[in-house]
């Protein structure tokens, strides 16, 4: 507590130094304030309370570029902590001054102003709207075209923060013509810039089909696919995010991405990364497969299922496993062909164990159960279904038995295999309420076999035989 008071005392000491005659002292005082406010939100509040902000805003328009940079730094430091502080900054009229700084000649001043605007716009959509109303977006688009890499980076990140809140804000950014420049900058070799650019494009594309189509029309494919092979992990992640946001809107967009070879690139990316970086790629495969069965078949043909299975097995985080389970469910739910392709990789057992495991989170259990149900309802590949007979809980069991009851009446080889593998025995052991669906399925299966066989496998048959032996009167 005392440290806080000491620091607040420091602020009241620094305040008169801001009005000093010597410009270097002013700049250094502003820099000190900025650094203090950056790391501690109490101090940031104190900066706001002591009415330092109006003073800074006034001098933003008058002083030289070093002071402007320091003042922009202070505004950024204060605005980063919470929406209330950012609101305080907006209320003292800082936005207009910052926007004027965006037109300055020195790239450092522009960078500081853009960064401050980005931190303010990050919190919520009202603040973003205030930033847009101050006329920042066209100037930011001009900043993006500047040659300095740091300025480009920050302008891209600010545009990304503005457009992420709502479709109208994203439309404003698009109307300023940002997409063309952002699309050109994907080719830049700097990794951090690529990250920001891809993030900006994905925030624009995520809101609606029209925005996604606009982004696609800027000819980002197939250049974006080279980002999936970048050495930096976050570039890969943001690239996968962008492709995901485009793919999720409509089947035509997914079709376009598949035709451009996007699925292969994303699959390779999933295979080469570990951890949260994989998540957008997994979700993208799920979205593409969810639209139609042709697209799902395209995903299967591009060898999409093995990486998803390894993901399910290797990852430690539950939400990534849940995403992988969901994606597998979307792939396998369309037709028996698809379900067979998924079941052949023996992933159904993993899904079942995940569903049954008490340690998995609720989300993971739910997704695993749904995926399992969707795949099982179409699966006719019996060798994959049999191991599941032994462990499944009743609600899954009825689907499995249902599938058996659909296939067995028509296929004699399968019937033989069912008996020899011990499936019939297991089915007899299942206790079902009479009249329920499960009982009907069991009856259908039992009707496929001659009565002696069914009786032979029903539980307690050996005891029954022994009883008959006991009660038998030998014929002498």
């Amino acid at each position, binding site marked *: 507590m005392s440290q806080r008071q000491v620091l607040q005392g420091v602020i009241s000491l620094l305040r008169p130094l801001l009005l000093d005659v010597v410009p270097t002292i002013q700049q250094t005082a502003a820099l000190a304030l900025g650094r203090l406010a950056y790391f501690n939100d109490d101090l940031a509040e104190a900066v706001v309370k002591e009415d330092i902000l109006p003073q800074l805003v006034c001098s933003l328009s008058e002083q030289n570029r070093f002071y402007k940079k320091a003042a922009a730094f202070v505004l950024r430091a204060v605005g980063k902590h919470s929406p209330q502080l950012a609101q305080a900054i907006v209320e003292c009229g800082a936005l207009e001054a910052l926007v004027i700084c965006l037109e300055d000649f020195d790239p450092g001043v522009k960078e500081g102003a853009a960064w401050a605007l980005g931190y303010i716009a990050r919190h919520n959509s009202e603040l973003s709207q205030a930033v847009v109303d101050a006329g920042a977006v066209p100037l930011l688009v001009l900043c993006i075209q500047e040659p300095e890499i740091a300025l480009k980076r920050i302008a891209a990140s600010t545009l990304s923060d503005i457009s992420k809140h709502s479709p109208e804000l994203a439309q404003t950014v698009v109307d300023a013509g940002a997409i063309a420049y952002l699309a050109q900058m994907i080719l830049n*070799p700097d990794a951090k810039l690529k990250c920001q650019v891809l993030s900006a494009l994905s925030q624009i594309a995520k809101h609606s089909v029209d925005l996604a189509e606009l982004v696609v029309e800027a000819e980002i494919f197939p250049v974006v696919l080279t980002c999936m092979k970048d050495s930096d992990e976050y570039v890969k992640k943001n690239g996968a995010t962008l492709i995901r946001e485009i793919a999720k809107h409509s089947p035509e967009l997914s079709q376009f991405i598949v035709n451009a070879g996007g699925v292969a690139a994303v699959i390779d990316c999933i295979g080469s990364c570990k951890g949260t970086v994989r998540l957008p790629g997994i979700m993208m495969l799920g979205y593409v497969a969810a639209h139609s069965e042709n697209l799902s*078949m395209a995903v299967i043909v591009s060898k999409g299922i093995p990486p998803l299975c390894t993901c399910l097995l290797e990852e430690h985080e539950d939400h990534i496993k849940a995403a992988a389970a969901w994606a597998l469910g979307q792939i396998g739910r369309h037709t028996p062909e698809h379900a067979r392709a998924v079941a052949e990789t023996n992933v159904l057992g993993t899904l079942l164990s995940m569903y049954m495991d008490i340690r998995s989170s609720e989300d993971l259990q739910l997704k695993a159960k749904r995926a399992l149900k969707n795949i099982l309802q179409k699966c006719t590949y019996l060798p994959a279904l049999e191991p599941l007979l032994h462990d499944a809980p009743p609600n899954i069991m009825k689907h499995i038995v249902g599938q058996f009851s659909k296939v067995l009446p028509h296929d004699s080889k399968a019937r033989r295999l069912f008996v020899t593998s011990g499936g019939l025995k297991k089915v007899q052991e299942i206790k079902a309420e009479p009249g329920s669906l499960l009982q009907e399925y069991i009856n259908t299966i039992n009707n496929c076999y001659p009565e002696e066989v069914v009786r032979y496998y029903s539980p307690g048959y050996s005891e029954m035989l022994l009883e008959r032996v006991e009660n038998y009167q030998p014929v002498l």
Partner: protein
Amino acid sequence: MAALVRLETRLSRLREEYFLKNRSVDEDRKIVYKAAVKIQSWFRGCRVRAYLRYLNKMAISIQKWWRGYQSRRYFRKMIKTAYFIMKMNFYNEMAVRIQKRWRGYYVRKYTHNYYALKKYLEAISLNNEIVRNELQEYAEMNEKKKKKKDLEKKEKEKKYKARKMHYLLSTEQIAGIYNSPFRKFPDPMELLLRQSKPLSHRQQQPKSPFTYDLYDWPTCKRPPAFPTGEPLPPIGRQKPQGPFRDAAEVLRQRYKPLEPTLRVAASISSPLEKAREEMKREEWRKCIHDNEFLPFSSYHKNEKYELSIHASEKIGKETYGIKHFREVQPNKWIAGKV
């Protein structure tokens, strides 16, 4: 006469008989009358009945005929509709057959074209392979570039170090630290030292190798450059016989860029003179007219008033071009032509 006596005896009885006969006739008259009426009424009834029967028969006959006619009409209509329905059913069935074939064909060709789907999936696999190969190449290229950059950076650092420490070069008398007499051959650092030019005291700021390489992209219009090493020598080049230096070295020396000293690089005129010249040039550029501004009106006293063009010319049309064309000076002619 006897008859008359007989009749006269009967005469007294005659009146009684006559009266009795009339009375019996009178008495019978009612009965007879009634009987007659009965008979007549019965007969009339018979006639009427016969007539009614006749009428009935006729009516029945008409109605029979009419009903037959109506039902025959109805029957014909029924047959027509039944025939029509049969025809329509037949047409429907034929139409269904055609539609069945057409729908099967259409769906198989356009909506769920199995072969097209197969081809599409094969094309996708091919495309994926191509994309994967290209991406692999791109990744390898990037890695090579990175490695090359790292190597170059290291080389540059080593060379810079060698230039800084050129004084460690070994001499005839004193072997340097990298050229120990106990070694079979000198250290590679020694060779570097031999090759390097000593670093001048002019503090040359070593340009960090990354400021221009990566940020050499003002508007990012160039695609990523492939790593170009040194150009390969021409094929089949035979080394010229004799004590010739290596051609590449010679070319390098011949086309070495000029490194002028500061004295040479600076222009002859000093900055002060340059600034003066610039000022003069500006004034020359800006100057609109040469007339000095003279402060007092007394300076303009002796100036002759210049008439404007309109006032100074003759009135009338210009004669040049109409009356005379070229300038002629007849007093200068040699021959006496008119």
